[in-house]
């Protein structure tokens, strides 16, 4: 009968599926496979090299790297945690760390650190970030700072010298020499720049500068965060703080200056132009510079058809500042192989792996020798990355990103406000103090 024939095709297809999947379930002997998850495919080759070296030294442990892009990474990890199938070791980020910690998903590695006498003072980024109540939930793997990415060809054309950018200054009132530079780089359709009295801000063909309203979840990390810090502003009083200082007048002045570069001066693109992202405008040669994190060095330089330079951020009223943020490698609390997972985390946080990763020139490892290797690797590609490394070494002028409870709710509340300031619908001085009250109320009412 025809019917049953069709059915048997379906059944045999399903059978084929069963067969295929059966072959996937690998036979395991004494050897242990540690699953390790990370998100940036650009970093995968570097960590694969680490994994190969690790397996050479520990022949019974194989590392299986699972890579997926940022958003899939976190969705996938959450689902896997719920199902109890999370990878043994995964890359952790402070935006998710507090939640993972409070849900008991991270293994306390302090006993291992004590037993193996791991020296935690060798890390460039404060390892205590990953310590709470005497327990340790990860070891630093890398760090990033913010610098100004600039189009070296356009800078040369505008006659801006290395000296100009090495010592440029900024303040929220008149923007200092930094704003002068922005003005010089902004061109209208008639070829007049922003310093020209006849400059037509309704017909700009090249922006001197670009930056969005800022991502509320990281305190606008690559955007106005460092500018605000250079006025002496502190968003919180440290990790696990329970009050935010979004009502600081210095912050309002900074954010307003930032928005006014578009709204009043016409030197920077607004929301409409930024729709496709800061990278797109820069790579198309439409914007001359933008502040960005060191994680973007590889993707911007490999896609650019012009020479890209990295300048230190301008010196503010209280000096030059940059946020420093680092990732850690954490062990899943439900792992079946905690000892082997620890071996791998220890190796990831060791100078040996840092050197291997450094040689790939994709990211700055958390250990100085690895950084030296990375600087050399970038040098080989013709890139001077000192703007990132100099500030990173200056512990008095770097600060950590906000890490508190309720980050996600705060982001939901704050993002519309930042957007409205940026779009000119409200003034920073009015809107920020107001939202700050609501944010701080989260810590007093909820739980």
């Amino acid at each position: 009968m025809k019917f049953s024939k069709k059915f048997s095709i379906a059944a045999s297809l399903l059978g084929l599926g069963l067969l295929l999947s059966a072959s996937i379930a690998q036979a395991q002997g004494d050897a242990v496979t540690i699953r390790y998850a990370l998100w940036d495919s650009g970093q995968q080759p570097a960590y694969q090299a680490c994994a190969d070296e690790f397996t050479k030294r520990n022949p019974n442990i194989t590392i299986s790297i699972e890579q997926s892009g940022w958003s899939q990474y976190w969705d996938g990890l959450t689902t896997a945690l719920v199902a109890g199938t999370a990878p043994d070791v995964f890359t952790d980020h402070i935006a998710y760390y507090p939640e993972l910690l409070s849900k008991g998903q991270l293994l306390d590695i302090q006993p291992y650190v004590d037993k193996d006498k791991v020296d935690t003072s060798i890390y460039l980024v404060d390892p205590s970030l990953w310590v709470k109540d005497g327990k340790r939930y990860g070891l630093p793997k890398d760090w990033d700072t913010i610098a100004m990415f600039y189009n070296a060809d356009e800078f040369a054309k505008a006659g801006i010298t290395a000296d100009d950018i090495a010592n440029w200054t900024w303040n929220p009132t008149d923007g200092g020499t930094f704003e002068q530079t922005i003005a010089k780089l902004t061109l209208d359709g008639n070829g007049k720049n922003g310093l020209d009295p006849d400059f037509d801000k309704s017909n700009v063909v090249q922006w001197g500068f670009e930056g969005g309203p800022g991502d509320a979840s990281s305190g606008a990390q690559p955007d106005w965060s460092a500018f605000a810090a250079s006025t002496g502003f502190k968003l919180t009083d440290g990790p696990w703080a329970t009050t935010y200082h979004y009502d600081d007048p210095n912050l309002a002045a900074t954010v307003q200056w930032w928005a006014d570069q578009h709204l009043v001066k016409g030197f920077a693109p607004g929301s409409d132009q930024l729709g496709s992202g800061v990278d797109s405008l820069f790579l198309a040669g439409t914007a001359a510079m933008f502040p960005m994190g060191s994680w973007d060095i590889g993707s911007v330089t490999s896609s650019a058809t012009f020479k890209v330079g990295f300048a230190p951020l301008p010196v503010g009223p209280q000096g030059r500042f940059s946020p420093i943020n680092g990732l850690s490698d954490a062990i899943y609390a439900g792992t079946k192989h905690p000892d082997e997972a620890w071996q791998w985390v220890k190796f990831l946080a060791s100078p040996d792996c840092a050197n291997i990763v450094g040689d790939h020139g994709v990211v700055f490892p958390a250990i100085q020798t690895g950084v030296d290797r990375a600087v050399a690797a970038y040098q080989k590609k013709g890139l001077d990355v000192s703007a990132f490394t100099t500030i990173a070494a200056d512990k008095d002028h770097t600060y950590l990103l906000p890490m508190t409870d309720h980050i996600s709710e705060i982001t939901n509340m704050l993002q519309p406000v930042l957007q409205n300031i940026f779009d000119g619908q409200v003034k920073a001085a009015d809107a920020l103090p107001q939202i700050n009250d609501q944010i701080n109320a989260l810590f007093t009412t909820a739980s």
Partner: protein
Amino acid sequence: MQASRITAYKRPPALKLRPRTETLIAWLFILPSLVGIMVFVFIPAVRGIYLSFTNSDLLTRSDFIGLQNYQKLLNDAQFWSSLRITVEYVLFNIPIQTVLALTLAILMTRLTKSNILRGIVFLPYLLPMVMVTMVWLTLLDYDFGPVNSVLQLLGLAKIGFFNQTTIIPSLAWINTWRYAGYVALLFFAGLQSIPGELYEAATIDGANEWQSFTHVTWPLLRPVTVFVLITSVVGSFQVWDSVAVAASPSGGPGGASRVIFWYITNVAFTQFNIGYAAAIAVALFVIVLVIALIQMWYFRADSSDLG
């Protein structure tokens, strides 16, 4: 059709099948489908409803907390704002999409039977939503998109398609672009089951194209229309893919595209508040159910005029 079966008409009517046999066969026919629906949709959903009465994070705790999540929902500004954004999206999406699809389906039956045209109309549905959104992001880009280039050539002002006020209509358009052909195909299949003689009769009676639409097509298409409307409204309320691609992690410019599904995943996957996320999902379900019931009552789905 075989001759023997046609001659069967001349025989006197025979006895109907015995009810017990019919019941048995009916259950046999429904069983696989019912098992699938119960195991993979209904029971998980019931579990989801149960979760909405707990403070579960599926990891460390799952205590029954009664209606607390629902009380929180009533006072949650973000929930009401997502609901408003979602409704706005649906209102931009559904009417245009439905009219467009119906027009295309009618043209595909009445104007031309070109197979190539049918292929082209259906083409967007072959593309995954993620890609469709990304392509439209580049097409509608403010500085680099060809749409704005054309506007400029025509001497018109450029339009920012993804700012706080325009992002929802733009996303609705992207969805319309992808699904219009799909919905047209549903209408198309429905149009084919309308006997051609009815159109001939209408033409003989001197009806023009519009009159034969209002008197033949529209009433006879009712079961398909109600089906299309219900499924597309339900789908539209759950818009997610395009928002996930077009909006930054924080939900578009200033959170202007935080649709309700975005909020559910935000609460579930970023805040780990599974219980509360389930409560929002249940609220969404109730809203959609009410709308579907209104639609069914309005169109009286069960009565096809063909009988």
